[in-house]
Protein backbone atom coordinates (compact mmCIF):
# COMPACT_ATOMS: atom_id res chain seq x y z
CA UNK A 1 0.00 0.00 0.00
CA UNK A 2 1.31 3.45 -0.85
CA UNK A 3 2.26 5.86 1.90
CA UNK A 4 -0.86 7.35 3.43
CA UNK A 5 -1.58 10.99 2.75
CA UNK A 6 -1.89 13.28 5.76
CA UNK A 7 -5.39 13.12 7.14
CA UNK A 8 -7.46 15.92 5.74
CA UNK A 9 -10.38 16.84 7.97
CA UNK A 10 -13.69 17.22 6.19
CA UNK A 11 -17.22 17.43 7.43
CA UNK A 12 -19.57 14.64 6.43
CA UNK A 13 -23.28 14.05 6.79
CA UNK A 14 -23.04 10.76 8.67
CA UNK A 15 -20.40 9.51 11.08
CA UNK A 16 -19.76 5.98 9.82
CA UNK A 17 -19.79 6.75 6.09
CA UNK A 18 -17.71 9.84 6.88
CA UNK A 19 -15.03 7.94 8.78
CA UNK A 20 -14.80 5.20 6.16
CA UNK A 21 -14.67 7.76 3.32
CA UNK A 22 -11.91 9.73 5.05
CA UNK A 23 -9.83 6.63 5.93
CA UNK A 24 -10.09 5.28 2.37
CA UNK A 25 -9.18 8.64 0.87
CA UNK A 26 -6.12 8.78 3.07
CA UNK A 27 -5.01 5.48 1.52
CA UNK A 28 -5.60 6.73 -1.99
CA UNK A 29 -9.10 5.40 -2.73
CA UNK A 30 -10.93 8.63 -3.44
CA UNK A 31 -14.70 8.15 -3.30
CA UNK A 32 -17.43 10.57 -2.26
CA UNK A 33 -19.35 9.97 0.95
CA UNK A 34 -22.63 9.25 -0.92
CA UNK A 35 -20.75 6.74 -3.08
CA UNK A 36 -19.39 4.98 0.01
CA UNK A 37 -22.82 5.09 1.68
CA UNK A 38 -24.63 3.73 -1.38
CA UNK A 39 -22.09 1.16 -2.51
CA UNK A 40 -21.84 -0.39 0.96
CA UNK A 41 -25.64 -0.67 1.08
CA UNK A 42 -26.10 1.88 3.86
CA UNK A 43 -29.76 2.65 3.23
CA UNK A 44 -32.64 0.90 4.93
CA UNK A 45 -35.77 1.42 6.93
CA UNK A 46 -36.39 -0.58 10.07
CA UNK A 47 -39.06 -0.29 12.73
CA UNK A 48 -38.44 -2.87 15.45
CA UNK A 49 -40.80 -2.54 18.42
CA UNK A 50 -39.00 -5.32 20.31
CA UNK A 51 -35.69 -3.46 20.53
CA UNK A 52 -36.13 -0.56 22.93
CA UNK A 53 -34.09 2.62 23.16
CA UNK A 54 -34.92 4.58 26.31
CA UNK A 55 -38.25 2.80 26.29
CA UNK A 56 -39.00 3.60 22.63
CA UNK A 57 -38.92 1.19 19.68
CA UNK A 58 -35.89 1.12 17.43
CA UNK A 59 -36.48 3.07 14.24
CA UNK A 60 -33.62 3.31 11.79
CA UNK A 61 -33.27 5.00 8.42
CA UNK A 62 -29.91 3.42 7.71
CA UNK A 63 -28.26 0.03 8.23
CA UNK A 64 -27.02 -1.06 11.62
CA UNK A 65 -23.74 0.37 12.93
CA UNK A 66 -20.74 -1.40 11.49
CA UNK A 67 -22.41 -2.32 8.23
CA UNK A 68 -20.64 0.36 6.18
CA UNK A 69 -17.27 -0.98 7.35
CA UNK A 70 -18.34 -4.53 6.53
CA UNK A 71 -19.82 -3.32 3.24
CA UNK A 72 -16.52 -1.70 2.26
CA UNK A 73 -14.77 -5.01 2.86
CA UNK A 74 -17.32 -6.90 0.80
CA UNK A 75 -17.91 -4.56 -2.14
CA UNK A 76 -14.70 -2.53 -2.39
CA UNK A 77 -12.17 -5.23 -1.59
CA UNK A 78 -10.75 -3.17 1.26
CA UNK A 79 -9.11 -5.05 4.08
CA UNK A 80 -9.71 -3.56 7.52
CA UNK A 81 -7.91 -4.47 10.69
CA UNK A 82 -10.61 -4.51 13.36
CA UNK A 83 -10.38 -5.27 17.05
CA UNK A 84 -12.46 -5.16 20.22
CA UNK A 85 -10.95 -5.29 23.69
CA UNK A 86 -11.69 -6.60 27.14
CA UNK A 87 -8.91 -4.61 28.73
CA UNK A 88 -9.14 -0.82 28.73
CA UNK A 89 -5.42 -0.29 29.24
CA UNK A 90 -4.50 -2.63 26.41
CA UNK A 91 -6.86 -0.70 24.13
CA UNK A 92 -5.26 2.60 25.11
CA UNK A 93 -1.70 1.30 24.71
CA UNK A 94 -2.47 -0.04 21.28
CA UNK A 95 -4.18 3.17 20.19
CA UNK A 96 -1.14 5.18 21.24
CA UNK A 97 1.23 2.80 19.48
CA UNK A 98 -0.81 3.01 16.26
CA UNK A 99 -1.18 6.77 16.09
CA UNK A 100 2.45 7.34 17.12
CA UNK A 101 3.34 5.09 14.20
CA UNK A 102 1.38 7.37 11.86
CA UNK A 103 -1.83 5.37 11.50
CA UNK A 104 -5.16 7.19 11.63
CA UNK A 105 -7.78 4.92 13.16
CA UNK A 106 -11.55 4.77 13.32
CA UNK A 107 -13.12 4.26 16.74
CA UNK A 108 -16.62 3.41 17.87
CA UNK A 109 -17.59 5.64 20.78
CA UNK A 110 -20.48 6.81 22.93
CA UNK A 111 -21.61 10.40 22.35
CA UNK A 112 -22.49 10.65 26.05
CA UNK A 113 -18.79 10.81 26.98
CA UNK A 114 -17.60 13.25 24.31
CA UNK A 115 -17.42 16.73 25.89
CA UNK A 116 -17.08 18.56 22.59
CA UNK A 117 -20.68 17.68 21.67
CA UNK A 118 -23.30 20.28 22.63
CA UNK A 119 -24.82 19.06 25.93
CA UNK A 120 -28.29 18.53 24.46
CA UNK A 121 -26.90 15.95 22.05
CA UNK A 122 -25.10 13.85 24.63
CA UNK A 123 -27.51 10.96 24.91
CA UNK A 124 -26.50 7.35 25.54
CA UNK A 125 -25.80 6.53 21.93
CA UNK A 126 -23.00 4.02 21.65
CA UNK A 127 -22.37 3.87 17.92
CA UNK A 128 -20.73 7.16 17.10
CA UNK A 129 -17.69 6.91 14.84
CA UNK A 130 -14.70 9.21 14.82
CA UNK A 131 -11.06 9.25 13.71
CA UNK A 132 -8.08 9.66 16.03
CA UNK A 133 -5.06 10.89 14.09
CA UNK A 134 -2.61 12.09 16.72
CA UNK A 135 -2.00 13.14 20.29
CA UNK A 136 -0.55 16.04 22.20
CA UNK A 137 0.11 15.79 25.90
CA UNK A 138 -2.80 13.98 27.51
CA UNK A 139 -5.15 14.82 24.64
CA UNK A 140 -6.04 12.95 21.50
CA UNK A 141 -6.47 14.79 18.22
CA UNK A 142 -9.81 13.83 16.76
CA UNK A 143 -11.33 14.27 13.34
CA UNK A 144 -15.03 13.87 14.04
CA UNK A 145 -16.81 13.73 10.68
CA UNK A 146 -19.97 15.46 11.84
CA UNK A 147 -18.06 18.59 12.93
CA UNK A 148 -16.62 21.15 10.53
CA UNK A 149 -13.44 21.46 12.61
CA UNK A 150 -11.09 19.05 14.38
CA UNK A 151 -11.43 18.57 18.12
CA UNK A 152 -9.43 17.30 21.09
CA UNK A 153 -10.43 14.75 23.71
CA UNK A 154 -8.80 13.94 27.03
CA UNK A 155 -7.59 10.35 27.28
CA UNK A 156 -9.95 9.63 30.17
CA UNK A 157 -13.02 10.84 28.29
CA UNK A 158 -12.03 8.86 25.22
CA UNK A 159 -11.55 5.75 27.35
CA UNK A 160 -15.01 6.18 28.86
CA UNK A 161 -16.48 6.76 25.40
CA UNK A 162 -14.83 3.62 24.00
CA UNK A 163 -15.90 1.45 26.90
CA UNK A 164 -19.44 2.67 27.50
CA UNK A 165 -21.74 -0.23 28.31
CA UNK A 166 -25.24 -0.98 27.08
CA UNK A 167 -26.91 -1.43 23.68
CA UNK A 168 -24.30 -1.55 20.89
CA UNK A 169 -21.48 -1.27 23.45
CA UNK A 170 -18.33 -0.39 21.48
CA UNK A 171 -15.96 -2.55 23.59
CA UNK A 172 -13.12 -0.37 22.38
CA UNK A 173 -13.84 -1.17 18.73
CA UNK A 174 -10.99 0.09 16.54
CA UNK A 175 -10.60 -0.22 12.76
CA UNK A 176 -8.31 0.96 10.01
CA UNK A 177 -7.69 -0.11 6.42
CA UNK A 178 -4.54 -2.18 5.95
CA UNK A 179 -4.95 -2.95 2.24
CA UNK A 180 -6.97 -1.23 -0.43
CA UNK A 181 -7.60 -2.39 -3.94
CA UNK A 182 -7.18 0.69 -6.14
CA UNK A 183 -8.14 -1.32 -9.21
CA UNK A 184 -11.53 -2.19 -7.68
CA UNK A 185 -14.32 -2.30 -10.24
CA UNK A 186 -16.55 0.41 -8.78
CA UNK A 187 -19.06 0.08 -11.62
CA UNK A 188 -19.71 -3.61 -10.94
CA UNK A 189 -19.93 -2.92 -7.21
CA UNK A 190 -22.59 -0.25 -7.81
CA UNK A 191 -24.88 -2.71 -9.58
CA UNK A 192 -24.50 -5.34 -6.90
CA UNK A 193 -25.15 -2.94 -4.05
CA UNK A 194 -28.25 -1.42 -5.68
CA UNK A 195 -29.59 -4.90 -6.21
CA UNK A 196 -29.11 -5.74 -2.55
CA UNK A 197 -30.76 -2.54 -1.33
CA UNK A 198 -33.72 -2.90 -3.73
CA UNK A 199 -34.32 -6.48 -2.63
CA UNK A 200 -34.17 -5.60 1.05
CA UNK A 201 -36.48 -2.61 0.71
CA UNK A 202 -39.05 -4.47 -1.43
CA UNK A 203 -38.87 -8.08 -0.35
CA UNK A 204 -37.53 -8.27 3.21
CA UNK A 205 -39.08 -11.45 4.66
CA UNK A 206 -40.16 -9.62 7.81
CA UNK A 207 -42.87 -6.95 8.06
CA UNK A 208 -40.78 -4.36 9.90
CA UNK A 209 -38.00 -3.83 7.33
CA UNK A 210 -38.15 -1.80 4.11
CA UNK A 211 -41.29 -0.38 2.51
CA UNK A 212 -43.42 -2.74 4.60
CA UNK A 213 -41.75 -1.42 7.74
CA UNK A 214 -42.73 2.15 6.83
CA UNK A 215 -46.36 1.04 6.40
CA UNK A 216 -46.16 -0.87 9.68
CA UNK A 217 -45.09 2.33 11.44
CA UNK A 218 -47.95 4.23 9.77
CA UNK A 219 -50.42 1.72 11.24
CA UNK A 220 -48.83 2.14 14.66
CA UNK A 221 -49.26 5.94 14.41
CA UNK A 222 -52.97 5.52 13.65
CA UNK A 223 -53.37 3.36 16.74
CA UNK A 224 -51.96 6.05 19.07
CA UNK A 225 -54.58 7.60 21.29
CA UNK A 226 -53.69 11.21 22.14
CA UNK A 227 -57.02 11.67 23.93
CA UNK A 228 -56.07 8.94 26.36
CA UNK A 229 -52.36 9.80 26.74
CA UNK A 230 -51.33 12.99 24.98
CA UNK A 231 -47.80 12.94 26.37
CA UNK A 232 -47.07 9.41 25.14
CA UNK A 233 -48.47 10.13 21.68
CA UNK A 234 -46.38 13.28 21.34
CA UNK A 235 -43.22 11.58 22.58
CA UNK A 236 -43.71 8.74 20.11
CA UNK A 237 -44.07 11.11 17.15
CA UNK A 238 -41.05 13.08 18.34
CA UNK A 239 -39.09 9.86 18.69
CA UNK A 240 -39.71 8.91 15.05
CA UNK A 241 -38.21 12.21 13.94
CA UNK A 242 -35.36 12.11 16.45
CA UNK A 243 -34.18 8.67 15.37
CA UNK A 244 -32.66 10.19 12.26
CA UNK A 245 -29.59 10.72 14.50
CA UNK A 246 -27.02 13.30 13.54
CA UNK A 247 -28.10 13.58 9.95
CA UNK A 248 -30.58 16.39 9.46
CA UNK A 249 -33.98 17.03 8.04
CA UNK A 250 -36.34 14.55 9.54
CA UNK A 251 -35.34 11.19 8.12
CA UNK A 252 -34.88 12.74 4.69
CA UNK A 253 -31.13 13.09 5.19
CA UNK A 254 -30.29 9.51 4.36
CA UNK A 255 -32.69 9.59 1.41
CA UNK A 256 -30.95 12.66 0.01
CA UNK A 257 -27.57 11.00 0.46
CA UNK A 258 -28.82 7.92 -1.42
CA UNK A 259 -30.24 10.18 -4.13
CA UNK A 260 -26.79 11.77 -4.41
CA UNK A 261 -25.31 8.27 -4.75
CA UNK A 262 -27.78 7.32 -7.49
CA UNK A 263 -27.02 10.53 -9.36
CA UNK A 264 -23.27 10.02 -9.17
CA UNK A 265 -23.63 6.37 -10.15
CA UNK A 266 -25.82 7.34 -13.10
CA UNK A 267 -23.21 9.78 -14.39
CA UNK A 268 -20.38 7.30 -13.88
CA UNK A 269 -22.20 4.53 -15.73
CA UNK A 270 -23.97 6.79 -18.23
CA UNK A 271 -27.28 5.35 -17.06
CA UNK A 272 -30.41 7.49 -17.52
CA UNK A 273 -32.60 5.22 -15.34
CA UNK A 274 -30.28 5.84 -12.38
CA UNK A 275 -30.59 9.59 -12.90
CA UNK A 276 -34.36 9.25 -12.93
CA UNK A 277 -34.23 7.10 -9.78
CA UNK A 278 -32.17 9.84 -8.11
CA UNK A 279 -34.85 12.44 -8.88
CA UNK A 280 -37.53 10.10 -7.51
CA UNK A 281 -35.52 9.46 -4.36
CA UNK A 282 -35.08 13.22 -3.86
CA UNK A 283 -38.86 13.47 -3.89
CA UNK A 284 -39.04 10.70 -1.26
CA UNK A 285 -36.64 12.72 0.90
CA UNK A 286 -38.83 15.80 0.55
CA UNK A 287 -41.86 13.72 1.60
CA UNK A 288 -40.00 12.57 4.70
CA UNK A 289 -39.41 16.22 5.49
CA UNK A 290 -43.12 16.99 5.20
CA UNK A 291 -43.89 14.05 7.47
CA UNK A 292 -41.32 15.24 10.04
CA UNK A 293 -42.79 18.73 9.96
CA UNK A 294 -46.29 17.34 10.63
CA UNK A 295 -44.93 15.30 13.57
CA UNK A 296 -43.20 18.39 14.98
CA UNK A 297 -46.42 20.38 14.70
CA UNK A 298 -48.29 17.69 16.61
CA UNK A 299 -45.55 17.68 19.26
CA UNK A 300 -46.02 21.41 19.77
CA UNK A 301 -49.79 21.13 19.94
CA UNK A 302 -51.24 21.89 23.37
CA UNK A 303 -54.33 19.84 22.65
CA UNK A 304 -54.93 16.33 21.34
CA UNK A 305 -56.84 17.42 18.27
CA UNK A 306 -54.07 16.82 15.72
CA UNK A 307 -55.04 14.41 12.98
CA UNK A 308 -53.09 11.17 13.32
CA UNK A 309 -54.64 9.76 10.18
CA UNK A 310 -53.26 12.68 8.21
CA UNK A 311 -49.80 12.12 9.69
CA UNK A 312 -49.97 8.39 8.94
CA UNK A 313 -51.08 9.24 5.40
CA UNK A 314 -47.98 11.41 4.90
CA UNK A 315 -45.88 8.45 6.01
CA UNK A 316 -47.71 6.12 3.61
CA UNK A 317 -46.84 8.57 0.84
CA UNK A 318 -43.16 8.12 1.76
CA UNK A 319 -43.66 4.36 1.56
CA UNK A 320 -45.40 4.60 -1.82
CA UNK A 321 -42.74 6.92 -3.25
CA UNK A 322 -39.90 4.71 -2.03
CA UNK A 323 -41.63 1.69 -3.52
CA UNK A 324 -41.74 3.54 -6.85
CA UNK A 325 -37.99 4.21 -6.64
CA UNK A 326 -37.05 0.59 -5.94
CA UNK A 327 -39.48 -0.79 -8.52
CA UNK A 328 -38.08 1.65 -11.08
CA UNK A 329 -34.53 0.57 -10.25
CA UNK A 330 -35.58 -3.06 -10.58
CA UNK A 331 -37.39 -2.82 -13.91
CA UNK A 332 -35.38 -0.07 -15.62
CA UNK A 333 -31.89 -0.61 -14.30
CA UNK A 334 -31.30 -4.01 -12.75
CA UNK A 335 -33.11 -5.94 -15.48
CA UNK A 336 -30.96 -4.35 -18.20
CA UNK A 337 -27.56 -4.24 -16.53
CA UNK A 338 -25.37 -7.23 -15.93
CA UNK A 339 -25.27 -7.86 -12.23
CA UNK A 340 -24.70 -11.17 -10.61
Amino acid sequence: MEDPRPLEHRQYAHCESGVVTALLRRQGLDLSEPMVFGITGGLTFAYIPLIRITNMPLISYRMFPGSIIRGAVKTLGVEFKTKRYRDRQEALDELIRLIDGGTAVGLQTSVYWLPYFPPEMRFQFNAHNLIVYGREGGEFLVSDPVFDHTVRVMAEDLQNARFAKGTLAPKGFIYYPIRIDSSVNVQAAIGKSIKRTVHMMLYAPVPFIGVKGIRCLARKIERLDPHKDLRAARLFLGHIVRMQEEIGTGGGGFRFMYAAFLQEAGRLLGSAPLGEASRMMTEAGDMWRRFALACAKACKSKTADFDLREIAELLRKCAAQEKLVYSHLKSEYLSTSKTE
Partner: protein
Amino acid sequence: MKVSEIPQDNVGTMQGEKKALYALDDRGIYTRATTSGWEAEEVVLTQVIDDFNEKAREAALRVRTNETSPVEYFMYKRWMDPLTLAQATGLFRWQVKRHFKPSVFRRLADGTLEEYARIFGVSVEALKNFHEED
Protein backbone atom coordinates in the same frame (compact mmCIF):
# COMPACT_ATOMS: atom_id res chain seq x y z
CA MET B 1 -34.31 19.52 -1.55
CA LYS B 2 -32.40 22.37 -3.13
CA VAL B 3 -29.52 24.11 -1.36
CA SER B 4 -31.68 27.25 -1.21
CA GLU B 5 -34.41 25.28 0.62
CA ILE B 6 -32.13 23.95 3.37
CA PRO B 7 -33.45 25.16 6.72
CA GLN B 8 -31.11 27.61 8.47
CA ASP B 9 -32.95 28.14 11.74
CA ASN B 10 -29.89 28.70 13.97
CA VAL B 11 -31.24 26.35 16.60
CA GLY B 12 -30.02 26.79 20.17
CA THR B 13 -29.11 23.18 20.92
CA MET B 14 -26.49 23.11 18.15
CA GLN B 15 -24.58 25.94 19.87
CA GLY B 16 -23.42 27.50 16.63
CA GLU B 17 -22.20 24.20 15.13
CA LYS B 18 -23.31 23.25 11.64
CA LYS B 19 -24.35 19.91 10.22
CA ALA B 20 -23.53 18.70 6.72
CA LEU B 21 -26.08 17.28 4.33
CA TYR B 22 -26.59 16.74 0.61
CA ALA B 23 -28.83 18.95 -1.50
CA LEU B 24 -29.27 19.98 -5.13
CA ASP B 25 -27.41 23.02 -6.48
CA ASP B 26 -28.71 25.37 -9.20
CA ARG B 27 -27.70 22.90 -11.92
CA GLY B 28 -29.54 20.03 -10.23
CA ILE B 29 -26.30 18.39 -9.08
CA TYR B 30 -26.03 17.01 -5.56
CA THR B 31 -23.53 18.86 -3.44
CA ARG B 32 -22.51 18.88 0.19
CA ALA B 33 -23.98 21.83 2.06
CA THR B 34 -24.49 22.79 5.69
CA THR B 35 -27.40 23.68 7.94
CA SER B 36 -27.54 25.61 11.19
CA GLY B 37 -30.47 23.44 12.21
CA TRP B 38 -34.15 22.94 11.50
CA GLU B 39 -36.85 24.13 13.86
CA ALA B 40 -38.88 20.95 13.42
CA GLU B 41 -35.95 18.90 14.71
CA GLU B 42 -35.38 21.34 17.53
CA VAL B 43 -39.02 20.94 18.60
CA VAL B 44 -38.75 17.17 18.97
CA LEU B 45 -35.35 17.40 20.70
CA THR B 46 -36.43 20.00 23.26
CA GLN B 47 -39.62 18.00 23.78
CA VAL B 48 -37.75 14.96 25.03
CA ILE B 49 -35.27 17.09 27.02
CA ASP B 50 -38.12 18.98 28.68
CA ASP B 51 -39.71 15.65 29.51
CA PHE B 52 -36.53 14.46 31.26
CA ASN B 53 -36.04 17.81 33.01
CA GLU B 54 -39.59 17.68 34.32
CA LYS B 55 -38.99 14.18 35.69
CA ALA B 56 -35.71 15.36 37.28
CA ARG B 57 -37.43 18.31 38.95
CA GLU B 58 -40.09 16.06 40.32
CA ALA B 59 -37.48 13.53 41.51
CA ALA B 60 -35.58 16.35 43.27
CA LEU B 61 -38.68 17.12 45.33
CA ARG B 62 -38.98 13.47 46.32
CA VAL B 63 -35.28 13.33 47.27
CA ARG B 64 -35.93 16.16 49.74
CA THR B 65 -38.89 14.37 51.25
CA ASN B 66 -36.80 11.20 51.48
CA GLU B 67 -38.99 9.26 49.04
CA THR B 68 -36.25 8.56 46.53
CA SER B 69 -32.47 8.73 46.22
CA PRO B 70 -30.27 11.10 44.21
CA VAL B 71 -29.68 8.23 41.77
CA GLU B 72 -33.13 8.76 40.30
CA TYR B 73 -32.62 12.52 40.06
CA PHE B 74 -29.26 12.27 38.26
CA MET B 75 -30.57 9.51 36.01
CA TYR B 76 -33.20 11.85 34.56
CA LYS B 77 -30.84 14.82 34.69
CA ARG B 78 -28.49 12.88 32.38
CA TRP B 79 -31.38 11.85 30.10
CA MET B 80 -31.57 8.21 31.00
CA ASP B 81 -34.30 5.86 32.13
CA PRO B 82 -33.80 2.91 34.54
CA LEU B 83 -33.00 0.47 31.73
CA THR B 84 -30.45 2.78 30.09
CA LEU B 85 -28.81 3.50 33.43
CA ALA B 86 -28.74 -0.20 34.27
CA GLN B 87 -27.02 -0.92 30.95
CA ALA B 88 -24.56 1.93 31.41
CA THR B 89 -23.57 0.71 34.87
CA GLY B 90 -23.71 -2.99 34.11
CA LEU B 91 -26.37 -3.54 36.78
CA PHE B 92 -29.82 -5.06 36.41
CA ARG B 93 -32.81 -2.75 36.15
CA TRP B 94 -34.28 -4.06 39.38
CA GLN B 95 -31.02 -3.22 41.16
CA VAL B 96 -31.08 0.35 39.84
CA LYS B 97 -34.69 0.73 40.91
CA ARG B 98 -33.85 -0.65 44.32
CA HIS B 99 -31.09 1.96 44.64
CA PHE B 100 -33.81 4.62 44.39
CA LYS B 101 -34.85 3.63 47.91
CA PRO B 102 -33.16 6.06 50.33
CA SER B 103 -32.57 3.31 52.90
CA VAL B 104 -30.82 1.10 50.31
CA PHE B 105 -28.95 4.03 48.80
CA ARG B 106 -27.44 4.96 52.17
CA ARG B 107 -25.95 1.50 52.51
CA LEU B 108 -24.52 1.28 48.98
CA ALA B 109 -20.97 -0.01 48.66
CA ASP B 110 -18.30 2.55 47.77
CA GLY B 111 -17.64 0.83 44.44
CA THR B 112 -21.26 1.12 43.36
CA LEU B 113 -21.39 4.77 44.41
CA GLU B 114 -18.20 5.47 42.50
CA GLU B 115 -19.63 3.87 39.37
CA TYR B 116 -22.80 5.98 39.61
CA ALA B 117 -20.67 9.07 40.22
CA ARG B 118 -18.53 8.28 37.17
CA ILE B 119 -21.56 7.80 34.92
CA PHE B 120 -23.21 10.99 36.20
CA GLY B 121 -20.00 13.00 36.00
CA VAL B 122 -20.19 14.13 39.65
CA SER B 123 -18.14 13.39 42.75
CA VAL B 124 -19.25 10.73 45.24
CA GLU B 125 -19.63 13.59 47.73
CA ALA B 126 -22.06 15.39 45.42
CA LEU B 127 -24.00 12.19 44.97
CA LYS B 128 -24.31 11.61 48.72
CA ASN B 129 -25.01 15.23 49.69
CA PHE B 130 -27.77 16.09 47.35
CA HIS B 131 -28.03 19.48 45.69
CA GLU B 132 -30.21 20.13 42.69
CA GLU B 133 -28.22 21.17 39.63
CA ASP B 134 -29.02 24.28 37.61
